[in-house]
């Protein structure tokens, strides 16, 4: 009786970077083909035409390009926030809540002190409040993780909804006009606490801030002592203790930072883009950023690409939806499919299949 499995799986040696990125690129191509087929099947539209519309929708006009860049910048900002935590293997699924907490604190200042302070001081105060809000929201689960090893994935996940409900409360409390259920644009007339537009581009300042932030996070993680400690703790807590790193301190400090950058994102959203706060201010980007961060293998520079990819898809698919009279959720479907493919492709980077018959027969 000679029965051999059809194939068995073995772990690969590390692939050179160009091969592994080749695999990922191939995955994206496959995903686009599958997504195209699904589009064809669902809507009967010519996929090539659909993709052309998609590109047009994302970068077809200058306004669209700016909108795409703003969206990418915000997603990237949140992904950058998650990176230190993820490198430490602290699975922060609470970015949505941390952004909202930051945005909320910032909006409170904007709303309550808008006419009492000079604009510069007000904006600065909003920034501080936003960063603090995010940091506090991020550090709470970290403290429990450090103290009792409380599962951080679940804790941070729950914190999202607490933030959402708190915002729901204040949005109703302070709704303008009373009872409308929304705060509306804050300081519409005075534009107090609004980040200025540069050269007529309202979003440019956000984009610049995030670009600088990308470089800073990269430097922090690669060249600073803190970044080094984060890597060691993430790799092995035992090693960290062995060389005298205070693991609890690093966890708390890093989550403070992670939350603070989320808070900054909240500030940019409230002060630099939306000028209001709603439950949807973060718009699910807190979750999408997890995928962006993971797809880039926690590397801030690659994250520019992955966040651009995701936003491109979502903007493009949004355009398809409008153009062909479809539903906006179409972009979620496409995004989902593409992530499935990229996530799945990691397998072929890390493992290798050996098929039956590709083995030398043992000579007895």
């Amino acid at each position, binding site marked *: *009786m*000679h*029965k*051999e*499995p059809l194939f*068995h799986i073995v*772990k690969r*040696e*590390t692939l050179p970077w160009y091969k592994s990125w080749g695999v990922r690129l191939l995955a994206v191509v496959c995903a686009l083909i599958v997504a195209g087929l699904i589009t064809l099947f669902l809507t009967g539209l010519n996929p090539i035409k659909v993709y052309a519309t998609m590109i047009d929708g994302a970068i077809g006009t200058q306004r669209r390009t700016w909108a795409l860049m703003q969206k990418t910048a915000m997603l990237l900002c949140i992904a950058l926030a998650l990176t230190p935590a993820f490198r430490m293997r602290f699975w922060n699924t609470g970015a949505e809540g941390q952004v909202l907490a930051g945005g909320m604190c910032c909006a409170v200042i904007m709303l309550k002190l808008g006419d009492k302070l000079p604009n510069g001081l007000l904006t600065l105060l909003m920034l501080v409040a936003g960063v603090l809000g995010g940091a506090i929201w991020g550090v709470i689960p970290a403290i429990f993780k450090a103290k009792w090893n409380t599962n951080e994935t679940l804790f941070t996940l729950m914190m999202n909804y607490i933030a959402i409900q708190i915002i729901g409360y204040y949005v109703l409390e302070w709704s303008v006009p009373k009872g409308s259920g929304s705060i509306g644009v804050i300081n519409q007339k005075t534009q107090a606490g609004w980040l200025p537009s540069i050269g007529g581009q309202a979003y440019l300042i956000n984009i610049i801030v995030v670009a600088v932030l990308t470089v800073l996070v990269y430097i922090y993680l690669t*060249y*600073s*002592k*803190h*970044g*080094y400690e984060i*890597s*060691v703790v993430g*790799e*092995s807590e*035992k*090693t960290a*203790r*062995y*060389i*005298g*790193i*205070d693991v609890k301190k690093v966890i708390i400090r890093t989550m403070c930072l992670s939350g603070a950058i989320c808070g900054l994102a909240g500030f940019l959203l409230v002060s630099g883009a939306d000028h209001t706060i709603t439950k949807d201010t973060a718009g699910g980007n807190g979750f999408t950023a997890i995928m962006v961060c993971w797809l880039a293998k926690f590397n801030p520079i690659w994250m520019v690409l992955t966040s651009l990819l995701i936003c491109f898809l979502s903007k493009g698919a949004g355009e398809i939806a409008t153009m062909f009279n479809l539903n906006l959720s179409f972009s979620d479907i496409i995004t989902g499919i593409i992530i499935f493919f990229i996530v799945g492709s990691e397998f072929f980077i890390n493992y290798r299949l050996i098929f039956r018959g590709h*083995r*030398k027969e*043992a*000579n*007895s």
Partner: protein
Amino acid sequence: MSVPAIELKNITKTFGKSVVANKNVCLTVNYGEILAILGENGSGKTTLLNMISGIYYPDEGQIFVNGEEVSITSPKDAFKYKIGMIHQHFKLVDVFSATENIILGLEDDGKYDIKKASLKVREIAAQYGFEIDPDKKIYEMSVSEKQTVEIIKVLYRGADILMLDEPTAVLTPQETRKLFAVLRKMKESGKAIVIITHKLHEVLDISDKVAVLRKGEYIGTVNTSETNEGQLTEMMVGKKVTLNIDRSDPVDPTDRLIVAHLNCMNRDGFKVLSNVTFTAKSGEILGIAGIAGSGQRELLETIAGLQPMVTGGVQYIVPETGKIEFLRDKTPLQIREMGIRLSFVPEDRLGMGLVGSMGTVDNMMLRSYRKGKGIFLRKQEPKALADKIIEELEVVTPSASTPVRRLSGGNVQKVLVGREIAAAPTVLMAAYPVRGLDINSSYLIYNLLNEQKKNGVAVIFVGEDLDVLLGLCDRIMVIGSGTVTGIVDARTTTKEEIGLLMTKEVRKDA
């Protein structure tokens, strides 16, 4: 008897491209026979049994059970052929009770009935003289209780072919004797038994035949009655090795580290060290001998500030001034900040001493990255150090930035020891620094330790090979079950004396 229980032909298994765990291994195991597989650490014994039990799948070769060629792709297949394996690292679910663990995986055991199963477990335990509480949760159990569960698990399944991976490593001599009695009983009832060990006296005591592996290669099988320790050692290590370690006299030995009445608990509240007292002197190598898991690891980790002590103290005498510093309740960082250069080569190299995913340069920084003001790392110094270690210790690595995880065991250890020595320590503790290393690398490590001794460092060396301990150290401290059973002069003592000390405390208990 005519048909062998298991026959292996030309089994080969590699991991990745470079690691050959088994090469052309041929083995025969008969019913009513105990086969010992002998080999040094890393010779591929466990990998071989894992292939028979379906954990790994061989790259090449054939496995015959009862004369028929079989393909064992999963542990389930192994059970089908009545093969049961007792792993060295217990495969138990912590939150389950003993009985739940024992019946785990059984599909055709009639109606699911824990009570009935518990009764059967008690029966088996009584039959072979085990003590076990079937309802006790695994996480509440001691190591030997867990092993009992593992063995009963196999017996419960009525396996005809039993394979045990280093079953005695964690047992007291009494428990070992009990286990051997059980094994003999099973042999008499016609079962085939394979036992992995690297302890020669056990091989001679229990087995009928011995198969020897060396670095993954099959060397040969001999009948136990026709062999002796000398021949087996020769097969195991190649040519007969007379250790030629250059031992100089201690250099101006003065007290450096005084450990007094140390008591320690592990995380589960079991006492792992009791009343340990000794002194390590500068300019000499203090060996620590003992059965694996007697508290050696905990002792070193406690001194290094990685584990809390319940009572007792550690004093460090500053070389230049003779001032006494107390190390109790200090963290590793605090110890370093006190100016005490205490280097520690831990047993778990990649899990504790080094970061596997980082290159040699980044691993050099582990000790020194805090140096210098500012928030940024300085890479020049560690880079220079890495290059120096790679050159002087002949570390084989594609580059100084290649993740150390991808280096071979010997090279990993060179990186680790190199770094610890580069810190110019006054105390150097090394736990099993040559485990799994080839002869050349081992000698390189011995020489490094000797060099440190000549420089006036107090070296503490935890070893498992008595010949090495006798040839390298100046004094040998023996630990048994967490207590010091004796401290002897390595130049005058004998292997027998140390062997007796290793089991002394345990005997007193009996």
